[in-house]
């Protein structure tokens, strides 16, 4: 009575083996994860590794082009651009990770509730999200920071708020199509309450597409935070932050001191690029169907 015909002796891959498989499978994923590791090292250990104090000024040595002592040159106050760019990584990543985490959690909660129960909750939530999306998002973020005060926390809150609609809509759609799926009904029959069914059976199935969104969002969040600082909101000088560094350097491009703006801009671009590339790899890692 058994159709035990094809049971390969190979065990299904564990999480670690699966991660290796995904990285080996796709060179782009490998590249993006390596670059992500590169930025993580800077974020955690940057302050210890850099050759100069990022805040130490030396007016005698101002606006020097890149050389062997100052790899990225020095700025108008003689500060080492390389040290400032590397040290800024921690702040920029912190802002974007926290902002994305907040919008992920709040957006998932709202979207899951709206998608599962529908009805008036869904209608009200959708109108609120439409309202948020109706604003130019960067201007909305500017307004929030300007109104709440010029602090790093407020940058995080503002960035989180403008990203919530993307998560809420995505989760709502993913939950909604699975609400009446066989496995959700089966979970109800197995004695799961609505809340448990939603949280432990339906929501985890929305994670793969969410991961793509998270990764793209990280890029946007970094750009957003840098953008706010660039126009003078949020992080204040002399704290090293990529947006501020670019803004400070922008004044000297005309006079030929290209390195002051170029290197922080390059780092900013690489960071956004890394996160944009990571999406597919992250999705493959959290999707059990990719395991064979």
């Amino acid at each position: 009575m058994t159709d035990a015909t094809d049971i390969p002796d190979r065990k299904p891959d564990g999480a670690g083996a699966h991660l290796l498989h995904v990285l080996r499978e796709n060179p782009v994923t490998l590249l993006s994860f390596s670059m992500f590791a590169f930025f993580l090292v800077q974020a955690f250990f940057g302050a210890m590794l850099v050759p100069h104090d990022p805040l130490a000024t030396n007016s005698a040595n101002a606006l020097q082009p890149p050389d062997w002592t100052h790899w990225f040159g020095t700025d108008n106050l003689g500060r080492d651009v390389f040290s400032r760019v590397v040290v800024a990584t921690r702040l920029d990543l912190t802002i974007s990770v926290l902002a994305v985490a907040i919008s992920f959690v709040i957006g998932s909660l709202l979207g899951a509730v709206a998608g599962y129960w529908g009805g008036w909750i869904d209608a009200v939530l959708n109108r609120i999200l439409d309202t948020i999306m109706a604003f130019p998002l960067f201007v909305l973020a500017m307004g929030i920071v300007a109104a709440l005060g010029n602090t790093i926390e407020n940058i995080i809150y503002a960035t989180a708020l403008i990203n919530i609609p993307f998560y809420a809509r995505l989760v709502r759609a993913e939950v909604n199509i699975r609400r009446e799926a066989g496995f959700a009904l089966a979970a109800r029959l197995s004695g799961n309450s609505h809340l448990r069914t939603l949280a432990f059976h339906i929501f985890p199935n929305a994670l793969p597409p969410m991961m793509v969104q998270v990764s793209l969002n990280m890029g946007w969040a970094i750009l957003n935070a840098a953008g706010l600082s660039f126009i003078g909101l949020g992080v204040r000088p002399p704290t090293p932050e990529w947006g501020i560094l670019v803004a400070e350097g922008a004044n000297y491009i005309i006079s030929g001191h290209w390195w002051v703006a170029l290197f922080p801009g390059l780092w900013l671009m690489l960071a956004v690029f890394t996160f944009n590339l990571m999406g597919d790899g992250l999705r493959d890692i959290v999707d059990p169907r990719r395991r064979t």
Partner: protein
Amino acid sequence: MLHISDLSVSFRTRRGEVEAVRGISFDLAAGETLGIVGESGSGKSVTSYALMRILDAGGRIKAGSAVFDGRDLAQAAERDMQRVRGREISMIFQNPRAALNPIRKVGHQLEDVLRRHGRATRSNARAKAIEALEAVRIRDARARYDAYPFELSGGMCQRVVFAIALACGPRLLIADEPTTGLDITTQKAVMDLVRDLTRDRGMSSILITHDLGLAAQYCDRLAVMKDGQIVETGAASALFADPQHPYTRKLVDATPRPGASLRDLLPAEVRTPLADHEPGTRPLVQVRDLVKIFPSKSGPVHAVKGISFTIREGQSVGLVGESGCGKSTTSSMLVRLLDRTSGDILFDGFDIAGVPADKFVRDARRSQIQMVFQDATDSLNPRHSARQTIADPILRMSDLRGAALTARVEELATLCGLPLPLLDRFPHQLSGGQKARVGIARAIALDPKFLILDEPTAALDVSIQAVVLNLLADLRARLGMTYLFVSHDLNVVRLLCDHVIVMQGGEIVEQGPAAQVMEAPSHPYTQTLLSAAPKPPAARPSLLKSAAE
């Protein structure tokens, strides 16, 4: 007319090249109907795609030839193929709704084809299209001309697709599972139409299907495919009477047919005696005047119109009807996923319909009433391993934990014939039959008294269906469960059930002991259903005899 020799088709995949069709050869004479029969993955559809040269990306014809009318289709240029498709060879597919453009009127879609191939001009296209619709026996063709696909039933859509396929007078029609997903009476109407029209026009046809009974009824000759090879060819009656290849014999055995018992469906060497099944007399489930009305924009829809029936302890009751008859609504209410509009559902004397579906999760009777779902793939959480899936109801509704839980899960898996190493696999790593076993193991995890089986074998191949039906009969004998078996397939219901309820349009039109309903149906609708079911030719007498012993 068509001469295929040594045709091989291969696909490039992540795991290297896979041969889907491995050197098949067959001939098709003018006016002949050939049935290609096989289970999923046998390469039967790929063969037809190769003939039409519409293989997916990555697929290619590796070797062999397919000579149609003196021209080798395997080598022909794409430009030549465009002339062949539609004009010489037409194809109809499984899902008729997907084959039609959803935002164009069906009449216009028919006109497009007629004009593309120069069969009509702008001025007479409409008249010709209506003529073509009438040819496929669409009533009131003039009005249907302006219908969109979503306004037509599945059977009606398949007729339109068929009209499009016939529009240019092809000489060969390939029908790939043309009636899968259609109701049994619609299936008969569509197949009769295909047979009559191809015969009238002297066309050849190839019917690709998993249903041996259907193929036997409508085809002159059958070719049985397995793993990309044709294992046996022959006239339908000969194939049934004396199958030569072991695989053909297995398929013939597994096809439900009048006169066969459950065990007859299994290969002869694994037939163990079936335990005696003696239903009790105490009523377990009593349904009284059950009504369900769904609100909708165009007014209330009466899905279930006051039905009453009793299921006795240990009985297996078949609930039969076509799509839209209210059988799924009824089973959803019985399993307490849906609230009734009015009426009672007495379970062990207690009115469970009085407990709202949302609150029933915490009811003591939750574990007593369970369900096996229609689509095994859809009903398993893709992120949970088989072990987690089976353990879920135990974790939620009992106190078993740790080693006792593991032991219980493994006991259930063994009971359902699921090899223990498969417990740590995810659903996508299991076959259809294995997924069905996981679904059944989950449903019986808490020893329910009453199990609702919602077409549990509809998505399975016949040989797997045979195994699963036997498993259900064995479980019933061992655990003393009461079954409500919801199905559209009377041949399957006959095998497992003692009592049959026939529903039509939300009402029960006939109910009674299975033998009586099957052999002497009193209601005309039951008679229609029974006569529409494909009737496979009688199997070899010796097979029946060995079963009787």
